[in-house]
């Protein structure tokens, strides 16, 4: 009876509770977060949605039907391309053209499957075996994650070139292993480049899941008589599946929105098949939109691929949040199950990993060769070492301007991210306000929004008369929009890092401060922030690195004004061939600069701040 009486007052209680939760600090933090997320994520994307449905003054599915029914976008029959076809002594591996949309999906799915297979294999070896040189492989297997936008694909295209490429030289001219030369290009070329670039994403995610499995779970299964593949299939695989899915979905999204590989390949081989993917088509239409408008059909395409990525990401996130097996059991022995195989097997493992490393790090190694020699126009091998391309980083006026622009955008974006990201994390981790989970979702979902889609939406939204002539108008000055695009796209890195720090702080540390007479604001400044400062800096470093190397919005919005171009736009221009011959080496030296920044930031984060460098995942 008393309990009924208590319940009847619970609405009043909720109102009072809400009023207590909404102290000035929380209100400020929540408002700032929503302002940025709604203003620069929700509203622009809404305008993309509206534009996609707009037709002859009304709303209709016209553009989607148009896309899904025209063979240019979706064609079940091949519209061209070659696969396993030998002509005049050359084996062509290009893939078949099934229309822009199907090509994109096929490439992304194939890349995801290949990356998952390689990722699982490498993770099982690294997580379960002990062998000579393992510590070295731990580091060098991550090299493909180093940013070499466009140039990576250019290098692969050059190495696989049927006439004077290194691969054909080795396999045909030198060793006479193959009867014909091989041409890897077109869609297959994209798949190769993206697989080599993204497999570490799956690998790191699976490995971390694998390391979190309590060894006694596998030992118990062995004890009951399950060994070998049966053990893997029934216990190990299901337990690391959430990690695999998390890595795979990121790979799928990255592949679908990737512009680096198509542009790089076109620069290397000029094969038009590499252009027939959605991301490139949206990018290309942007180049035409310089003065005018973006067609509703392109908006619809941008919207379509965004729906695919956001939907699959949200589903996976929901799945993984319900399937978190890690650390179920506590206590007991917790040393990973490491076996030391026989010398012969060890040799096999080392050989295999070395092969993978050479393939995977080929773009990075090639970039270095391009930047420091005359390889760009010397044929199969470089003939001369030169420092002139590195010098160009400080002497070429256009290059210097691009570097300074990128630095400025990234620094300002990171500053905004620090305020917004910390606010969101704090509210989500420590306060109990309504719409808290919406805030959390809005802060993580940008991971899955394709950069080109965001760029189109910014263009559509901010070039409306409402913003005409203002600093937000992309046709007046894209600088501020680039900063905000970086902020939104890299915000998840920041929030995740800060959130991890906040979770380590026991509630009582804040309560003790409140109890001693400090307000929430004072408590935040004197207790909370000092305790998470390393997480904030580590998140900032990571966001900075990924902002400097940001591609999609940089080469679309960045193209709108010559004196505002960022580094990646400059590289894309060089690789695409707009700039002078041989200039691709300057692009490579810019990539070396990006890699240096990235390595430095990772090292500081790992060894100075003692933060585990957050890798890409859900």
């Amino acid at each position, binding site marked *: 009876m*008393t*309990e009924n009486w*208590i*319940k009847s*007052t*619970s609405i009043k*209680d909720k109102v*009072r*509770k809400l009023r*207590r939760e909404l*102290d000035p600090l929380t209100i400020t933090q929540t408002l700032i977060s929503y302002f940025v997320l709604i203003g620069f994520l929700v509203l622009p994307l809404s305008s993309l949605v509206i534009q996609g449905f707009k037709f002859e003054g009304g709303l209709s599915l016209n553009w989607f039907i148009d896309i899904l029914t025209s063979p240019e976008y979706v064609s079940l029959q091949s519209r061209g391309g070659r696969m396993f076809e030998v002509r005049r002594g050359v084996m062509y591996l290009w893939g078949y053209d099934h229309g822009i949309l199907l090509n994109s999906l096929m490439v992304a799915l194939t890349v995801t499957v290949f990356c998952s297979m390689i990722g699982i294999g490498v993770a099982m070896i690294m997580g379960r075996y002990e062998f000579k040189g393992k510590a070295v492989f731990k580091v060098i297997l991550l090299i493909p994650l180093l940013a070499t936008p466009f140039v990576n694909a250019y290098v692969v295209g050059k190495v696989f070139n049927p006439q004077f490429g290194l691969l054909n030289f080795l396999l045909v001219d030198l060793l006479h292993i193959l009867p014909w030369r091989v041409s890897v290009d077109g869609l297959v070329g994209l798949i190769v480049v993206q697989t080599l670039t993204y497999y570490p994403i799956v690998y790191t995610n699976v490995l971390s899941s694998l390391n979190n499995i309590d060894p006694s779970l596998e030992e118990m299964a062995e004890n009951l008589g399950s060994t070998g593949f049966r053990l893997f299939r029934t216990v190990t695989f299901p337990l690391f599946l959430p990690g695999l899915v998390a890595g795979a979905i990121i790979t799928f999204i990255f592949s679908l929105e990737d512009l680096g590989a198509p542009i790089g390949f076109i620069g290397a081989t000029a094969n038009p098949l590499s252009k027939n993917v959605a991301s490139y088509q949206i990018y290309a239409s942007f180049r035409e939109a310089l003065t005018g408008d973006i067609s509703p059909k392109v908006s619809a395409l941008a919207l379509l691929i965004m729906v695919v990525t956001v939907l699959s990401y949200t589903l996976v996130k929901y799945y993984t949040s319900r399937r978190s097996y890690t650390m179920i059991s506590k206590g007991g022995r917790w040393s990973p199950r490491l076996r030391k195989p026989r010398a012969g097997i060890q040799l096999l493992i080392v050989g295999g990993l070395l092969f993978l490393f050479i393939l995977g790090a080929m773009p990075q190694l090639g970039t270095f060769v391009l930047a420091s020699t005359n390889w760009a126009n010397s044929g199969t091998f470089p003939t001369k070492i030169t420092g002139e391309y590195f010098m160009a980083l400080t002497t070429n006026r256009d290059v210097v301007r691009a570097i300074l622009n990128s630095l400025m955008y990234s620094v300002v974006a990171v500053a905004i991210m620090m305020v917004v990201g910390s606010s969101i994390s704090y509210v989500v981790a420590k306060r109990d306000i309504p719409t808290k989970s919406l805030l959390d979702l809005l802060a993580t979902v940008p991971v899955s929004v394709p950069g080109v889609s965001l760029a189109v939406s910014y263009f559509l939204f901010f070039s409306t008369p409402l913003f005409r002539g203002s600093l937000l108008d992309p046709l007046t000055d894209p600088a501020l929009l680039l900063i905000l695009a970086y902020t939104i796209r890299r915000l998840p890195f920041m929030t995740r890092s800060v959130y991890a720090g906040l979770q380590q702080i*026991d509630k*009582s*540390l804040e*309560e*003790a*401060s*409140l*109890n*001693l*007479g*400090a*307000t929430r604001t*004072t408590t935040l400044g*004197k*207790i909370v922030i*000092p*305790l998470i400062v390393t997480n904030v800096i580590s998140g900032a470093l990571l966001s900075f690195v990924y902002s400097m190397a940001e591609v999609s919005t940089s080469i679309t919005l960045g193209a709108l004004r010559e004196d505002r171009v960022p580094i990646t736009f400059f590289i894309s221009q060089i690789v695409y061939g707009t700039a002078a011959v041989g200039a691709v080496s300057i692009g490579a030296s810019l990539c070396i600069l990006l890699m240096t920044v990235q390595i430095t930031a990772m090292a500081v984060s790992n060894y100075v701040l003692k933060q585990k460098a957050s890798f890409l995942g859900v």
Partner: protein
Amino acid sequence: MVEIELRNLTKLFGDVVAADHVNLTIEDGEFFTLLGPSGCGKTTTMRMIAGLEFPTEGRVLFDGQDVTGLPSFERNTGMVFQNYALWPHLKVFENVAYGLNVRKIPKDQVKERVLDVLDQVELEGMEDRFPTQLSGGQQQRVALARVLVINPAVLLLDEPLSNLDAKLRVQMREEIKALQRRLKITTVYVTHDQEEAMSVSDRIAIQNHGKVRQIGSPTEIYNVPQDIFIATFMGRGTLLEGEVTSTEGGVHMSIGNITLQGLDSTGSISQGDKAACVIRPENYCIDEPIEPSNVLEGEVEWTSFIGPYTEVRLDVDRHKVLVDVPPGVEAPVGGRLKVYIPYKNTIMLPLEE
């Protein structure tokens, strides 16, 4: 210094009732303990006094003034957390000075007061250490110093000794008690350890399932428990259930072939009721005492030598009875033993449904 009054204090977490219409008054300068098993709502009740939790219903009054809606930082309470909640990035001095700095006390005064309070808790010379460089007992003292330095109106201690080893726990509870006596500060102490509660408290409130079951001095609660939960929660004992045959000149109860006579501490037992009899093992006499007593005789089933006494389990007509036998009395397993319990130590309680 302040008198605390809780009126109908109720807290719901979803459907879980953490505190259920708690009514009590803690007097100025009193050492008051909330005692109960884990999950009984004692910590929630304390956190509502501190302003870290807000009641669903009811009010908290300090010296008659309603503070129910006041946030923690406006209440001037000093809370010592179970895990101490020392800030790991601040040195001992900075931890203790925090409350004074928040109150914008001049620097020289802060230093003087911090050093003084560190002296009081015997931590002089430790001010430049970080919390992680201290032992558990020292951390506990820092936590205490950190709240004492602001001269709080109320001292709140949430299981402050639970992280210390047994010996240190006894030492610290004596120190806390002495400190509280000296400062005459109203203190609320939360613990699940009944021995600890009895040794430090002026009064104890026993809480179970959110409800306060009894409030009283340690002796009252131990000797005159108001219900079976309290009787079994406090100390050891034997619980025998039976039927009340008469209430003339005390309660007469029959348990199978055993008949017992005892005191009705609640005054609510009548003839024909089901009732329970609680007897503490230390209250038995081996020789017949002068006072009127019940007699029990049975076979020694099991013995355990504790030191000051030997614990003996008797089988009396298939009822197990726990008896403390003083040193020097022979009670071999399998032998027979006759014991006496004065009526006044035989507690009769109504059986709850």
